[in-house]
């Protein structure tokens, strides 16, 4: 494509600059992959080995930690709870968030900025700050110790940033596309669902990852609201390895290695949509 870097005709200076940039990016890649490698390798060690030899390969590759975690400590159940809660929350974050973004970015109405700032307020303070009033509200709704409590909280936490990011992207879409669709007789909802959503695929993918990760890894709200064993999530289970005076690093790293897998899977799946976004832009 003409917009790719034309290396053949480029000046030497340009080539050198690009080379330096490439090296910087590669250094960053190494800085990313090493900790990942470190974490997974540590899951095969015992706590004492991790503390004594944190950087060396394990003497024996033993899956004992994995078995202890999954079977004895009931992490299979925690994993399922995490999946249920995260997926449920994310589905509605994307749906309600994109709908609200569409409403704000494509329609002008008097309360537009107010509504926008209301959504934005949601990110301006960590919800943790208001845990006691939040607990009272959840209690009034009789949702304490139910999965729904965390699902609603996570939906509420995900929507503000989603609206903020998506509204920004939706604004960049030229008006003629919308006019063309209206002239063709599309209803508002169809314009939203069949034109804007696909066009924003890459930003929706972005927003999904941006929100899914903190929701998946959050241990605070499930800790407060999910008190029964059968509802606990993965991060809550992991937090139990942090004793007051000792930490079970071996099992902790095993748990962290397991926990990152769904996130990586989701990410690889979503990353296709970055390409989609590019192609859609080109086809326009």
């Amino acid at each position, binding site marked *: *494509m*003409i*917009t790719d*870097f034309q290396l053949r005709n480029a000046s030497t200076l*340009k080539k050198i600059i*690009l080379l330096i*940039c*490439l090296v*910087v*990016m590669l250094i*960053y*890649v190494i*800085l*990313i992959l090493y*900790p990942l490698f*470190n*974490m997974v390798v540590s899951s095969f060690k015992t706590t004492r080995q991790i503390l004594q030899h944190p*950087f060396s390969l394990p003497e024996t590759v033993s899956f004992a930690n994995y078995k202890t975690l999954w079977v004895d400590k009931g992490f299979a159940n925690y994993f399922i709870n995490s999946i249920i809660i995260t997926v449920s929350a994310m589905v509605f974050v994307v749906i309600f968030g994109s*709908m609200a973004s569409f*409403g704000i970015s494509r329609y002008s*109405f008097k309360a537009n900025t107010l*509504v926008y*700032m*209301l*959504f934005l*307020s*949601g990110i*301006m*303070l960590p*919800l943790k700050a*208001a*845990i006691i*009033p*939040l607990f009272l*509200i959840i209690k009034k709704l009789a949702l304490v110790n139910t999965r729904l409590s965390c699902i*609603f*909280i996570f*939906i*509420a936490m995900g*929507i*503000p940033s989603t609206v903020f*990011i998506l509204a*920004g*992207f939706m*604004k*960049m*879409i*030229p008006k003629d596309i919308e006019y063309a669709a209206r002239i063709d007789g599309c209803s*508002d909802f169809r314009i939203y669902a069949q034109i804007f959503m696909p066009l924003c695929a890459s930003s929706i993918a*972005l927003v999904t990852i941006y929100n899914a*990760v903190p929701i998946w*890894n959050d241990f605070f709200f499930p800790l407060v609201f999910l008190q029964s064993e059968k509802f606990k999530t993965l991060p809550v289970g*992991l937090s139990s390895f942090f004793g007051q005076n000792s930490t079970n690093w071996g099992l902790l790293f095993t748990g962290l290695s397991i926990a990152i897998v769904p*996130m*990586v899977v989701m*990410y*690889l799946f979503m990353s296709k949509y*970055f390409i989609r*976004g590019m192609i859609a*832009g080109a086809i326009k």
Partner: protein
Amino acid sequence: MNGKSLRKTGTILMFVTPGLLIVVVFILMPLLMSLFNSMFNWNQLIRAEFVGLENIKKLFNTYPYKERFFNALGNNLRWFVLTMAIQNTLGLLFGYLMARRILGHEFFKRVFFLPVLFSIVAVGFLWGLYLRPNGLLNAALAAVGRTDLQHAWLGEARYATLSIIMVNIWRWIGFPSLVFLAAIDSIGQEYLEAAYLDGAGEWQVFWKIVFPLIIPAITVITVLTIIGSLNVFEQVYTMAGLDGAPNYATDTIGTLFYRTAFGSVDSGSPEIGIGSAISVVIYLMTFFFSLFSIIFTRSKEVEL
């Protein structure tokens, strides 16, 4: 005329209401209640008499609140400046390079976002390991013969916050990279083609065409950085604890707020009144700085 505007209102409501309702009930209401709490004195966990703005005044005027607050705020400012200067600039650079399909861009695209997927606990502990006195960073410095540069990265007041900020930048560069990548991608290819065919150089194309057109993305990143810098908590908590060790050098208004409002196991009971006052101040600052950013950049938005 009336029917049309009613339908229009109805449409807008349909799109906006579900999200707004959930956010109002589960976020805004608790936050308002908690801001309201700042106007009362508290007897441990029980609300006592109404005192209006007393708590906020106390926060700004009395020892030790004043000292801690401004110390923490200074650190938050460091967070913001360094994050903008390093994380977002590098992010823009990487995003641009990937949009222009530099060698290996498919690979980079996928790998750059990996650190975001780690749990903060993992990040905190792993980097804590590398930054230990006998950790990888110091070992690497020794290997190149620069033992004079070795430090207790998380233990010395001068380097502690800096180190934590760098770890956070490490974690998040991928995010602005991908946001800017998506933004630059969404610029119609035909505009860029036209510019290149007209003989414009890289630098010109970037500053005159690409940059103005991605201002909404820049707004998004800037505002998220402002909000993030004022609210930073998890990363500091994991790497330096709740009390701003060492000697408040890593303290941020987020950790100050949390230990004031909820108490800290090692050092004290909650003071809900002052804690809520801190949250009022955080909220107001975040609100106004974000608003200014948005207004400022909205005025610079360019439409096609």
